[in-house]
């Protein structure tokens, strides 16, 4: 059966409906219609199709919510997003040694997406969670990805208009250029107040065997905790980054 022309439009609405339900919880289809800007009958059809496919459930009060099928889809997406990564044990060690929140993030177009977060022992840094992302001008993981990742600074500036997250965020082209140069020369990136006020982070790149950039690894916590031990933390991070990179088996 041919995929009709309407398919891409329907799937676009479908994605919007799913994101609305993910953000707001179960809603009456009429509310979904309003939220994603489609006529009510379309929203009812969409909801019906989602329920039929098992992606949503309808509750006795008439509201529609996402089904638990998304749990398995999310887990599976997370597992295949960074198949090379198998060393969760090293992230736990890193967290226990530093007592800070540990993030592992992989590059996607103009952003870095969190695939692991291990809460620190004191403050929990909430700006990023698995599946969440930051633009490449924000935070240690964003900026280290900008410095070493697959997207050049010029590409990033062309396709994205860097927005601030706090009043300390870097948004100007020249400042970003200087930041990239600093990250490259010292091998790590210090993020101070630029993603969340009061929070600092240190991020390093993770490279594969061929020298390709695979991920950004960072530790984050209260400014004082991080800044006092910048040298020590950056060394520990670089050591961990070397160990978590996949190694080709030799013979």
């Amino acid at each position: 059966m041919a995929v009709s022309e309407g398919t891409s439009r329907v799937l676009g609405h479908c994605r919007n409906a799913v994101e609305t339900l993910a953000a707001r919880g179960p809603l009456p289809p009429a509310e979904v219609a309003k939220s994603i800007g489609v006529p009510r009958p379309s929203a009812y059809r969409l909801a019906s199709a989602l329920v039929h496919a098992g992606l949503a459930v309808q509750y006795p009060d008439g509201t529609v919510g996402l089904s638990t099928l998304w749990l398995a889809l999310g887990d599976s997406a997370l597992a295949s997003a960074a198949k090379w990564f198998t060393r969760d044990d090293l992230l736990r060690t890193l967290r226990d040694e530093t007592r800070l929140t540990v993030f592992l993030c992989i590059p996607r177009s103009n952003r870095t997406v969190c695939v692991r977060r291990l809460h620190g022992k004191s403050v929990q840094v909430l700006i990023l969670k698995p599946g969440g992302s930051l633009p490449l001008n924000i935070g240690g993981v964003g900026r280290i990805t900008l410095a070493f990742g697959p997207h050049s600074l010029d590409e990033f500036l062309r396709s994205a208009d860097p927005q601030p997250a706090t009043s300390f965020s870097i948004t100007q082209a020249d400042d970003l250029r200087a930041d990239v140069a600093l990250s490259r020369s010292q091998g790590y990136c210090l993020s101070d107040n630029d993603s969340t006020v009061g929070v600092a982070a240190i991020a390093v790149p993770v490279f594969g065997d061929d020298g390709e950039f695979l991920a950004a690894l960072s530790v984050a916590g209260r400014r004082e905790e991080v800044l006092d031990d910048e040298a020590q933390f950056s060394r520990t991070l670089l050591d961990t980054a070397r160990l978590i990179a996949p190694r080709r088996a030799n013979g």
Partner: protein
Amino acid sequence: MSSIEVAADATGMSAVSKAMRVLTALAHTGELTAAELAAALDEPITTVYRMLSNLEAIGWIERENKRGGVVRLGIDLVAVGESVEESLDSRQTAFAALSRINEQTHETSYLCVRDGNRAACIERIDGRYTRTAELPIGGSLPLHQGAGPRAILAFEPEVFQERYLSALASAQLNPMNEADLGRLTAELRQARRTGIAISDGDVTPGIYSVAAPIFNHRAEVVGSITLSSLRAGSDARFEEYDQLIRSEARTISTQLGHQE
């Protein structure tokens, strides 16, 4: 109230169900090439390419750029899964089950979750005629004592159980002796086989408790529900209780996304 049970139009229904088939195939295998997907779905490759373009446009799949490159689920799905997981309220779900149990049996029932090496009671409905004294809300017991705690311990990973048991054996205070350790090990094995843990007077004399584990979508044990009553009346009643706790625990697990 209008119902969504109206006939969906052909395009929407087929687009969404086709999308679902692609997502399901990828969720099962991790990564597939377009050709492998075409074979798995029994669709012409040209159709598969169109489906993939549409799904890629909404971020539900990702494709490697090179020819014959693999297709995998899109990273955006992770955030949706996280939202669903956060919205699941195991306590509320379990409370509904405890209410049903109470209505049917008029006995005490409660929900336990693991807290380190202990199981803590976080929700409880007292019996209509008698109220058993063990595990008030906020109370806790070591994981090897009582049906509720043991139903959790029995379904923890093997390494956890081994560590827990060896800690019991080498405890400074009242280390557990060989015979008791053997009995406990057998009880845990029995619980794994039958799906329920039974405590017949071992915490409180004269109290019969039966508990079943609750699992999340990763098949990890997240707690247990227990039905506890006076050891009086016929054994037939207890058989009925065993069945009831098993099926209610299964209902909770299903609502938390667990698939058997």
